[in-house]
């Protein structure tokens, strides 16, 4: 690395939080490192302290908690989430997205929480987590707070997380039997690539739609207006096409080196249509 920093691996959460409290912006949390190390190498970031969270047992958890909710700790890798039976069975869209993120060896290091904290507009895991109404647990020496994921992102690569705070983990509310969910991603190539557009969709057991997208706005986006429209419409064969059209109003994609705004707009329609088609299909997969 071209940056100078001290590496600290605290053995306990309280140690870690004390470090963050005293060093603040001079410190950077290291989980999987797949984003952080690139920035350190390019000298885009020059923290004085790199604080590794992997020494803290409780952050490695993926488990069912009270009420059937699922907890995903900050140290959990994307592959651990993708391979988890719990995730595959109950949160299929998250498993879909996890399996489409970057490359296999990156997924062995990258963490679910890191993908969220990085707050890229194209974060693959954000869409699925949004449709499952994920909550983020934020801790500091001052205590714990819990916020909805959709309130976590504030802009391109920006979140509400303060330098003294740690994103401790994610809670996924319990789902009931008979739910369907899916994540579709379009990238430039089939192999390791960032998404041009990603759409996550969920139809809950009360037949309510939950939809979210990545790469079409400054932050991952919950499609609340589209959800309202779909949830207010009668189920017809035209629904997927209606959704494809309606989503255009709700997104503000940009043109960049990866795709034009027009193509993103077009593909948002195509993928939303396919997601809705999948969700309303009878008889499961």
């Amino acid at each position, binding site marked *: 690395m071209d940056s100078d920093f001290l590496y600290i691996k605290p053995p306990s959460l309280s140690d870690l939080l004390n470090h963050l409290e005293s060093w603040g912006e001079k410190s950077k949390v290291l989980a999987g490192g797949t984003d952080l190390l690139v920035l350190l190498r390019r000298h885009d970031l020059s923290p004085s302290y790199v604080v590794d969270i992997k020494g803290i047992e409780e952050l490695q958890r993926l488990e069912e908690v009270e009420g059937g909710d699922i907890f995903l700790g900050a140290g959990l890798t994307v592959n651990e989430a993708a391979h988890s039976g719990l995730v595959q069975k109950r949160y299929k869209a998250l498993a879909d997205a996890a399996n489409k993120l970057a490359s296999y060896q990156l997924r062995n290091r990258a963490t679910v929480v890191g993908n969220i904290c990085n707050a890229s507009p194209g974060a693959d895991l954000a869409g699925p987590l949004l449709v499952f109404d994920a909550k983020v647990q934020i801790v500091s020496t001052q205590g714990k707070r819990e916020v909805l994921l959709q309130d976590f992102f504030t802009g391109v690569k920006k979140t509400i997380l303060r330098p003294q705070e740690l994103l401790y983990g994610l809670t996924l509310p319990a789902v009931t039997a008979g739910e369907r969910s899916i994540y579709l991603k*379009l990238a430039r*190539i089939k192999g390791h690539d960032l998404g041009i557009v990603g759409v996550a969709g969920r139809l809950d057991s009360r037949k309510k739609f939950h939809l979210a997208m990545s790469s079409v706005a400054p932050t991952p986006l919950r499609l609340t207006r589209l959800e309202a429209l779909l949830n207010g419409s009668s189920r017809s064969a035209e629904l997927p096409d209606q959704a494809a059209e309606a989503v255009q109003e709700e997104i503000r994609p940009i043109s960049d080196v990866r795709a034009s705004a027009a*193509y993103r707009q077009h593909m948002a329609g195509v993928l939303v249509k396919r997601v809705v088609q999948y969700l309303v299909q009878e008889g499961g997969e």
Partner: protein
Amino acid sequence: MTLVMEGRSEGAMREAGYRYVGHSPDRQEALEKVTGRARYVHDMELPGMLYAKMLHSPYAHAEILSLDVSEAKALPGVKAVLTGRELPYLLGLYMVDKPILAQHKVRYQGEPVAAVAAVDTRTAAKALSLIKVEYQPLPAVLSVEEALTGGVLVHEDINTLDYVKGVFFPQPNSNIASWHKTIKGDIQKGFAQAELTIENEWRLPQVAHVPLETHVVIVQADPYSPKVKIWSSSQSPFAVRNLLAKAFGISRGDITVVVPYIGGGFGGKAGIHLEPLGVVLSRVCQGRPVKIQATREEEFNQLPTREGLRGRVKTGVTKDGKIVAEEIYFDWDGGAYADYSVNVGRAAGYAGAGPYEIPNIELHSRTLYTNKVFGTAYRGFGHLETHWVIERQMDLAAQALEMDPYEFRMKNLLREGATTITGEKITAHSGCVDQCLEAVAKEIAWTGYQSAAEREKAFKTGKVRGKGLAVLHKAPAMPPNTSTSAIMQMDEDGTVRLLLGAIDMGQGAYTTMAQIAAEVLDMPLEKVKVIWENDTDKNPYDWQTVASKYTFMGGNAVIRCAQDLLRQMKEVAACVLRCPVDELTHGNERIRHIQHQDKAIAFKDLALGYAYQNGTGIGGPLIGRGVYMAEGLTNLDPATGQGLPALDWTYGAHGAEIEIDVETGEIHVLKIASAFDVGQVINRKLAVGQVVGGVIQGLGSALIEGYKYSPEGRLLNPSFTDNKIPTAKDIPDRVVPIFIENPQRDGPFGARGVGEHPMISVPSVLANAVYDALGVNFYELPLSPERIVSGLARQKE
């Protein structure tokens, strides 16, 4: 499912009689490569070594107003800081136009303006950050159109630049680095005969080579003498030596270039790149070795790339489908320096019309200077680009004629008795492009384009399929008097050590040469050892490892070398066995009498000279030599481009079958069948490797890759994040290599080269299949999902 069929051969199975030729022995260096013991320059460190880094221009075109390196120089650990001011040298293969570091002005974003050598990379990077440069941005030339207007000159001194006269044709007061013309027949008369003319314009962007090992050199320059030693990840050690000697005015004998394993080249490591900077840095540092390793970003935006191209073609045909006239303008986006791109332009001049007989033609190939990363050789040397233009144009001509593009091609392909556009006669032994086309058409079950009704029906399902065909040809692009050589020595146990001038960068040259040697000597392949690590002080000369010329030229040199060794062994054996030399033959590692087979001497007993029982010796250590120089080629006429440029033509054809998602625009390639008339396969496994790997590289150019610039000329995708190449998930369901074997009379065992050819025409065959699927023609690369979707939208309007 089998992904790749064993490369099958159509035609005579002559290799039945060969011991090694046509078989599939493992590559010689495989063990080193699977154990991680193969050492690349990337891996090398020398005692006292310094590390260099370069500072790059942020502007595409700018005057350098001031450059202050004082703080960088003062940084502890910094041993040298150099700028263009101290380096009044210009280098160039053909146009002598490129400074080692920018002088007075920068001509592309990414051009190095200063370099630092320091005790470690961290210090070097720190020093770079202390250099202050003031630029005055200038209007930049960023397209072939802008280049042709000549309003802004990339090289204001173009009129005074030195260049290879008679071969290249820079135009005064312009951005035209060379204007090559090919004129044959009477084009006006030809178009007058035409019953239909088809006119189109085609484009493709610059594309990067992407060797997995970036460019890297270590240079140790003696401060007290002109002596220089270079370790380089290079395809061209002898060319590096030659060009360095010219640039610095020193003797070839003072320069040593060593090439160990090289992690991919694809043309991007031909010629000379980081070596001169290494020389001047090491000199300033009192001869300490200096390592310069390009970062991945520098690989994209500082080091050269493949040229972009705009091709405009007008083809005149008769109603029965004969081409009677063609006018072609190739305008090459050559970037800031001419490097190989003027020669790419020249190759386009004699091969750019494709493997067709065209009685009346005028072809203009103009290599243009622009303010972009400069162009160089890339696998296929202009032929992927020109065949993108021609093989799409041929399909459009067939469409205009409402003719099956297979039939149209078959009517016009070069065959025995035809003449090329430079006046070369095609003979029965030149290879058969029609057989290649026939083979791939059969492999993909080609039955002609589908009808509009069939297309419409399929379109409703959301997934449409299409098939396409394309042909190709290429000869080595090289000076008419190119040569190579080989040396063979035998050890006392009968082992043969073979020294070659070429570089094996993974294409398998050394393995095929060992096979040829073992075949001629009729001895076990295991006992023929090609000496790895090419060293210009020790290895015999080879021009450079480019152009798909080495199997042909190196193979011939090795045959002669082995024959020389046999002749020496027979001369001594004739004395020992007391018989005339012409009554001796060889086999089973022995020289023996043709009739009295027990009269024989083992090779090993002749290796160091023969010793009689009483101790007396005759002969001496065996050293064979073999050379090959291209025969019968000529320079091209400066006015008409007529002449004999081609050592051997390798013909080929692809057939493709694809499926397109009409909503997303994604192309899924089901199958690519690729046939080449290689004359004779030397190593089947390696030949299949060249075909399959080349086809996938071509697929990258077709569907994925290309440089993107901001309106100011900044490269927007100088990393793997945004400059994607195919991964294991992006390959077709099947690639089917087919080898046609019509022998080349003067090739080794009848062989021709096939290293570059597999990637040529892959973009065109896929776009032809896209037309079959969608009924839409695409004129620009890459065929990204986005381009397909917007093409479909335009068609709807």
